[in-house]
């Protein structure tokens, strides 16, 4: 079982390498042979594309985990830079400190201002440490709350990008109330009278994710995951075997399809063929289209209506058995 996205995509990478070699060979070959080689390159490329398409249309839960965590996957700032203009990062939580795992600030979306927040991962070791692996501390959530308040005060719709393995569980974060910060952030999202759209672009990791994902519309990328616990953690608890992550991923039903099936997200946003990391620009374009479409509908509603509908949407979440006929009806949703 592959443990990383790179390991799992290795066959594909080998094909890519062979294609590259053939291309080089063709370049160095005499005219007569070259044509033949280039034909083979084209054939390989066609097959590779087919392979990618099939492979990515049949991703199992564990492969989704690997893809969602892929270190080439576009991160929040990639989406921000593609989708918005004039993004101006604002930093302060006004309480304790700067947090680089959650970023945010106002920006224009098609010429109208919005407030953007999101978890930010790092692409290399230095960046990852700077971003604390996108695990936000209390300061991150309190900054998010401040920006949400600002959005509400000035009538800017809120858009949040969700991509975190979990909230920071360190002793320091405990001591400054990471639990309170997450809960207060959710509470603030339910108070907002502006439209809000959340989009899970990679890892929707438990409390750290839901902390900024209580929006009017919750979208989820095709290959993103959203889970109450990391599959490895689940496996460790269930079977005392953290390496049974794949089984746990299956058991947890952490895919976009299941989230939609259970009525916990509003829409699955398609990714480019072969995953968002194969075409970050196209991925951002697809995400933007969905965000804009949802915002357009939400903007027609009054603040109190937005609040009420947001409440009702989350209010319905859950599945249980009820002997009360009214509940019983409700649960068949």
């Amino acid at each position, binding site marked *: 079982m592959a443990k990383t996205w790179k390991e799992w995509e290795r066959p594909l990478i080998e094909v890519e390498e062979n294609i590259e070699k053939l291309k080089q060979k063709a370049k160095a070959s005499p005219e007569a042979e070259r044509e033949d080689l280039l034909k083979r390159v084209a054939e390989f490329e066609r097959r590779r594309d087919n392979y990618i398409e099939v492979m990515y249309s049949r991703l199992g839960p564990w492969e989704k985990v690997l893809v969602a965590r892929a270190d080439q996957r576009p991160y929040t700032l990639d989406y921000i830079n593609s989708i918005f203009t004039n993004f101006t990062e604002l930093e302060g939580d006004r309480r304790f400190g700067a947090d680089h795992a959650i970023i945010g600030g106002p920006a224009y979306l098609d010429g109208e201002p919005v407030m953007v927040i999101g978890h930010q991962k790092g692409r290399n070791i230095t960046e990852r440490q700077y971003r604390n692996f996108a695990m936000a501390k209390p300061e991150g959530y309190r900054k998010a709350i401040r920006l949400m308040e600002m959005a509400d005060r000035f009538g800017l719709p809120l858009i949040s990008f969700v991509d975190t393995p979990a*909230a*920071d*569980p*360190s*002793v*320091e*974060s*405990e*001591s*400054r*109330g*990471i*639990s*309170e910060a*997450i*809960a*207060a952030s*959710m*509470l603030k999202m*339910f*108070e907002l009278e502006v439209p809000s759209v959340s989009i899970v672009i990679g890892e929707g990791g*438990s*409390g750290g*994710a*839901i*902390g900024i*994902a*209580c929006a009017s519309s919750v979208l989820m990328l095709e290959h993103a995951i*959203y*889970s*109450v*616990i990391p599959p490895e953690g*689940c496996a460790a*608890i*269930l079977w005392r075997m953290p390496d049974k992550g794949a089984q746990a991923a299956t*058991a*947890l*039903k*952490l895919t976009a399809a*299941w*989230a939609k099936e*259970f009525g*916990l997200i509003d829409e699955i946003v398609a990714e480019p063929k072969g995953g968002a990391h194969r075409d970050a620009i196209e991925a951002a374009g697809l995400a933007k289209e969905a965000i804009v479409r949802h915002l357009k509908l939400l903007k027609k509603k009054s603040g109190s209506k937005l609040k009420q509908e*947001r*409440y009702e949407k*989350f*209010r319905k*979440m*859950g*599945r*249980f*058995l*009820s*002997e*009360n006929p009214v*509940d019983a009806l409700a*649960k068949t949703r």
Partner: protein
Amino acid sequence: MKAEAFLQCSQCKKILFSVEFEQLLRVCPHCGHHHRLLAKQRITATFDPESFEELDKEISSLDPLEFPDYEEKLEAAQAKNGATDSVISGWAKLDGMKVSAAVADFSFMGGSMGSVAGEKITRTLERAADAHCPAIIFCASGGARMQEGLLSLMQMAKTTAAVQRCRENGVPYISVFTDPTMAGVLASYASIADIILAEPGALIGFAGARVSKQAGVSKAPSDFQTAEWVLQNGMIDKIVHRREMRTTLTNLVKMLSWRLVKHG
């Protein structure tokens, strides 16, 4: 459970009279350790006698994910505990004053919050908001119920939204952290109450102590994640001995709901 005449305090290892121990609300007379209470014991210890009226009894957990062994675990917990899930909810009275109450029971699958617990907490808060009377929730939970996957995570959002309803209606909501109050429960409805009380020595935290200690740079102090540590960090309002809980709650609830109850 067979009633024995004597038992041993798990904390100080001293031998206790069972009858005295129960009279002391399961607080050790030697070391003061607050032993866990079953939900029903908590209700008896806290609210006016015979005042508790249980609601939401008709709902119970499904196995929506068809999660390995979940059905068996649920059935075993139900058989052992006698309740249908980890939270009991309903109306209660404190010195004659009506309150909407929920009490979690750690002995039922670690007090974990799945769809049923989330629904009961939500209803408890909604009833308080609608009836304009205070909400009191005794927390005791290891966190979200893994076996219900994302549905469990969403209970954090759902219960938080219900707290917002109470705020909007000017209805006071007090949560009490008992041993243990952790993870998904702590990071949702539990931590945003107007007033937070805790029992002495209760374990209170977001992540398991092992995880916390591995992360970050600071060393965990010896009282890490205890009620005392959490008080020192400003996260709760007061540590209240179990025998004082009823009086303290009554006093606070009366002061904060003065406007809701017509006076003069």
